[in-house]
C-alpha cells in the first residue's frame, strides 16, 4: 500500500489546514498556495493524511492509495 497525494492549486484558498495537520507533507508557497512536499509520503500516519483531506475547506486535496 502506498499513498499518492495531490493538491489542486487552482482550487486552494490558502486556509492552511493541511500544513497544520501534516507539515511534513504540505507547505504553502510565497502566495499561500498549497505545495505538496511529499507526493508519496512513506511512513506517514494514514489517518492524518485522511484528516488533511476532510479538513481542506476547498476540497483541493486528494489521496489515492494503490
Amino acid at each position, binding site marked *: 500500500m502506498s499513498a499518492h497525494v495531490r493538491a489542486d492549486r487552482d482550487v486552494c*484558498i*490558502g486556509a492552511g489546514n493541511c500544513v497544520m495537520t501534516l507539515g511534513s507533507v504540505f507547505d*504553502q508557497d510565497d*502566495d499561500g498556495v498549497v505545495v505538496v512536499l511529499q507526493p508519496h509520503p512513506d511512513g506517514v500516519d494514514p489517518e492524518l493524511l485522511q484528516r488533511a483531506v*476532510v479538513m481542506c475547506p476547498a476540497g483541493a486535496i486528494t489521496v489515492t492509495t494503490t
Partner: protein
Amino acid sequence: MADVLTDRLPLFPFRSPDEDPFTPVTTADRRHLDGPVTRVRLPTGGWTWLVTRHADVKQMLRSDAFSADMTRPGFPLLRTPPPATPQNRRGGFIRMDGEEHLRLRRMLTAEFMIKNVRRIEPLIADVVDGALDALDGAGAPADLVATFALPVPSLVICHLLGVPYADHAFFQQRSAVMLDQGADPLAVRDAATSLRAYLGGLIETKRTSGRPGDDLLGRLVSDRIRTGELEIGELIGMALLLLIAGHETTANMIGLSVLLLLQRPAVWQRLREGTDADADTLVEELLRYLTIIRTGLPRQAIRDVQIGGRLIRAGEPATALLSLANRDAEVFDDADEFDPYRQAHQHLAFGFGVHQCIGQPLARAELRIALTRLARRLPGLALAADPAALPKRDMSIVYGLAELPVTW
C-alpha cells in the same frame, strides 16, 4: 415574505439559556427544530432554512449552489440593512462569490499563513505580557474583557495592519455597532462610513509617503495598488474586514474561554503546567464548544439543491448553523459536553468552503499564547461575579461576554 405559516416558526437567532452562557440553544429551541434542515423566522420578517448537521453544513458551505452576496433580494437578513451605499461594500470579499471573491482573498493568504504567524508569535507574547503587566499593576478586581480579552487581539491586528492602536476607542466602538444585530441601520451605515474614511486616510498617507511601511496595508499599497491590481476602495474594504474580524472574534473567544476554564480548576491547572501541544488540543475544543459565530453563516440558493434530504429551491434563503453542527453527535461523542482532551479538529468554528476564516492560524496562536500566559501569570484568577448574571452578546454576529469581572 411574512405569512401565517412563517409566523408560527421559531424565532432565530436563538439565545443561550440564562444559567448557561456556553450552550447555543435552549431546550425549548431544540424542541422547535423539527429536523436537521428546518425553517425558522427572522427578526426582519422573513424566514430561512436552518442547516444544523455537521455533514450538511460542510456540504452547503462547499457548494457553489449558494451565494454569500447579502445584497441579493431574498437573502436571509437578521436586521434591516442600512440604506444602499455601494461604496461601503467595496472590497468586502466575504460577501462576494466565485472569482471576484478569490481574487481579493488570494491577495491576503500569504499574510496569514502558518509560517508567517509563527514569525509573529514573539510579538503576540509581548502584547500578552504587556496587558498582564498592566492588569497586575492596576490590581484586582478588573473586567477581563476590557483589560485583556479585547486589547490583546486589538493590539495584534493593529500592528499587523499598520493601524495606530491609539485610535482604538474610535474603531472598537464602531466595530461593535457593525456587528450588533440590534443596532439602528443608520448607525450601522454611519459606523461603516466613518471607519472607511478613517482607513482611507491611513492608506492615503502610506500611498503618498515614499515608504508605505512594512505592515500589511503598506505591503498591499506597494505590491498591489501601485501595480494597478487593486483599487483604493477595495483595499479600504479589505482593511475594514480584517480590522473588525481581528477585533471581535478572538476577543470574545478569550473572554468565554476564561469564564469556562475558571469553572474547571483541573483544566486551568493543566493549561498552566502542560505543553504547547496540550494547549493546542484545548484550543480546538474551546473553538468547537463555544462557536462564537452563533447566528450562523447566511447564504441564498442560486439553483435547486438537496441538503440533508431537503430540496432547497433557487432563491430560497439558508443559514449554516455552525454552533449546532459543532454539537453533532454523529461527529463528536457526548457533543454537548466540554472535553478538553478530545480531538476536536473537525469543528466548523471557522466556517467551511471558500470563505473559511483566513485568519485562523493567527486566531489559534493568539488563543494559545493568551490563555497559557494568563494562567501562568495569574494562577489564582477567579470569577468576581455570578456566571449566570454576566451580560451576553446574544444579538451580535459574534457571540461573547460584554464583561468578565475577575479577581486574583
